[in-house]
């Protein structure tokens, strides 16, 4: 707190103000008292918890991390078996949460922007369809939506033996969507590397083109050139490696499909539910952002002969984003946090794994603390990134 300057200089002891009349000193005193109270309460709660746990001989500490988890997890991005440690099981859960949050945020942003723009369309039908989508999705609790989508997946799709097979190598059944994927080959790694190289090169090309345009006024189609290269060069690399075409085709063996890539009903239902629910909010945010721009701006942009795409990209979006980004960030955080509802429909997210861990080890306090730390970390990382982006987009006043 800022020390308030006393307007009259005090030199003598006679005129000295007692400290409880001095706003600055009083504020300081309150702060110190508050600090002690908070510290004392924290200490009391902590020691009381410790004492109670010890009295009931409930185990404490994070020693269980290294113990064998001995439970199986339905889907995992990294190799995992029941023989691995709790730490690894929890990592699997955290990655699963990250997976659904990451893909969910990207899809939500795309779908939300699309619906938001459609809502403003001059076409009556398009605008009404977008409007009803928003109203319906926004107003049904997300948990119900998850149950609904999950039920659709397991009730309406057939069992693996009667799986739908629309095209060769693709199966739809109540075990999920199963696709054929290319057999792993060193060419794929090289293709991915090449793709990255093109992307980085494209960024530099774009910067150079922008500078050139500022100097000479001549535009350079950096975007189109990069897209072409990004498509063409990896194909060239693929041909160079002898064009491997071996596919890992899923096959029905015993109970289930073996091979290929499976997207589980749990993941699909969770992703669908979260994306549809959150994108309705994002759509409204995008609409508000676009409507916040003065019509005169758009007319002016058209007057200097910018194409509609350019109007959107160069005039509307940079200004609309300033309004859009802060509430968009909070929707992204909502999506991440809502992903913990996965427990209800059996997706192995962090909360699900942590719950099982809590139950097997009995260490609820540690488990819940871990859940809080993980979600805090995800949320803060998203916030940091979005704040950085927001700063970049913010109005620079000269």
């Amino acid at each position: 707190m800022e020390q308030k300057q006393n307007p009259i200089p005090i030199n003598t002891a006679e005129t000295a103000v007692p400290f409880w009349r001095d706003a600055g000193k009083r504020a300081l005193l309150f702060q110190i008292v508050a600090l002690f109270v908070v510290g004392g309460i924290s200490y009391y709660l902590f020691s009381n918890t410790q004492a109670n746990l010890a009295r009931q001989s409930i185990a404490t500490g994070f020693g269980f991390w290294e113990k064998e988890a001995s439970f199986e997890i339905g889907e995992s991005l990294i190799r995992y078996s029941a023989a691995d440690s709790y730490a690894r099981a929890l990592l699997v859960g955290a990655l699963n949460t990250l997976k659904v949050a990451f893909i969910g945020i990207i899809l939500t942003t795309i779908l939300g922007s699309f619906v938001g723009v459609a809502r403003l369309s001059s076409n009556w039908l398009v605008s009404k369809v977008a409007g009803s989508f928003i109203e319906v999705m926004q107003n049904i609790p997300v948990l119900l939506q998850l149950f609904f989508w999950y039920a659709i997946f397991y009730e309406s799709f057939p069992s693996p033996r009667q799986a739908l097979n629309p095209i060769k190598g693709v199966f739809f059944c109540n075990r999920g969507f199963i696709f054929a994927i290319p057999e792993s080959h060193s060419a794929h790694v090289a293709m991915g590397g090449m793709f990255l190289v093109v992307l980085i090169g494209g960024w530099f090309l774009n910067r150079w083109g922008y500078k050139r345009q500022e100097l000479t006024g001549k535009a350079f189609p950096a975007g189109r050139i990069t897209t072409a290269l990004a498509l063409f060069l990896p194909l060239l690399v693929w041909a160079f490696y002898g064009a491997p075409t071996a596919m890992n085709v899923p096959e029905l063996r015993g109970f289930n499909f073996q091979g290929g890539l499976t997207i589980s009903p749990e993941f699909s239902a969770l992703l669908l539910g979260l994306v549809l629910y959150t994108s309705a909010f994002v759509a409204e945010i995008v609409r508000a952002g676009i409507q916040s721009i003065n019509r005169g701006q758009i007319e002016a942009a058209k007057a200097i002969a910018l194409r509609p795409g350019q109007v959107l990209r160069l005039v509307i979006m940079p200004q609309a984003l300033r309004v859009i980004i802060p509430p968009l960030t909070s929707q992204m955080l909502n999506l991440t946090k809502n992903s913990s509802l996965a427990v209800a429909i059996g997706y192995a997210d962090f909360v699900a794994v942590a719950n099982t861990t809590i139950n097997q080890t009995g260490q609820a306090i540690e488990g819940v603390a871990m859940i809080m730390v993980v979600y805090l970390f995800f949320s803060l990382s998203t916030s940091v990134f979005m704040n950085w982006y927001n700063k970049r987009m913010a109005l620079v006043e000269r």
Partner: protein
Amino acid sequence: MKITKTLVLVLSLCLMLVSFAHAGKDLDAVKSKGFIQAGVNGSVFGFGMPDEKGNWAGLDVDTARAIAAAIFGDASKVKFTPLSAQQRFTALQSGEIDVLTRNATQTLSRETQLGLNFVSVNYYDGQGFMISKKLGVKSATELDGATVCVLPGTTTEQNAADYFRTNKMSWKPVVIESTAELAKTFFAGRCDVLTSDASQLAGTRAIAANPKGYAILPEIISKEPLAPAVRHGDDQFRDIVDFSVLAMINAEELGITSKNVDMMLKSKNPVIQRFLGTSPGNGKSLGLDEKWAYNIIKQVGNYGEVFERNVGVNTTLGIERGLNALWTNGGLMYSPPFK
């Protein structure tokens, strides 16, 4: 003003926590409350589930009623809290419930790490597999590659992992927290197999649209001694809970039922006299009324009656006594002497 309000709020919160943490002895707390708060399953037919009229019924529910009958002389002085598998131990630890009668398996780590005491077993169970008859599977050893529906927070999850690992079979779990939702998912065909304690499988099958379409495989892959549990810290309460369970078993051994218990009061057999409190002693030792065992049998019944009423062969579950028969009939139910 604002600071004062906040401070008052914080302090009152602290006081709440304090009173919560230092709740007195469990038995005293129960007695002064006037009823027992029992944690039960809530959705397993035959063990703990409200019937169509909203009255709680089941083997575990009756066990809780027996404890109430022992302490208050009135089996209705009990309130039930339905708990999920994941909530149950925390609910007991935190004092939300006084006793857990919710088909919980007694294990070493639960006794030691969770701060719980399990008492005598009220149902010997074992984990099994249920599968649709359409799949034509006859044994659990044919389950390689299967998708398995399993409830989280139970020993079931671990047993299944152990079983598939020992038999070198691959599998995929589908883990859903609510028992009802899990059953729905299984019946819709999301999983090939549902694994749980055999008694629960029977209960789940009983509420299926087509119970005849499902078979329980012969393999029992684990030992599941299901027992009521109490918190550490009140041995007298633990004894009461323990002997309430045992009293029902002992009554069956002695041939005392809810129907003949009044007649048995006139029995000349000293063992029965001691048990029913006509020759006093047992009640005083437990800190209860001498009629405590009489009240249990009169109001709830002996173990055999409770078993047959809730899960026995004449119910929809149709479970044989098996391991849960008296030791004299080849089962495991055995009560220490009441003297």
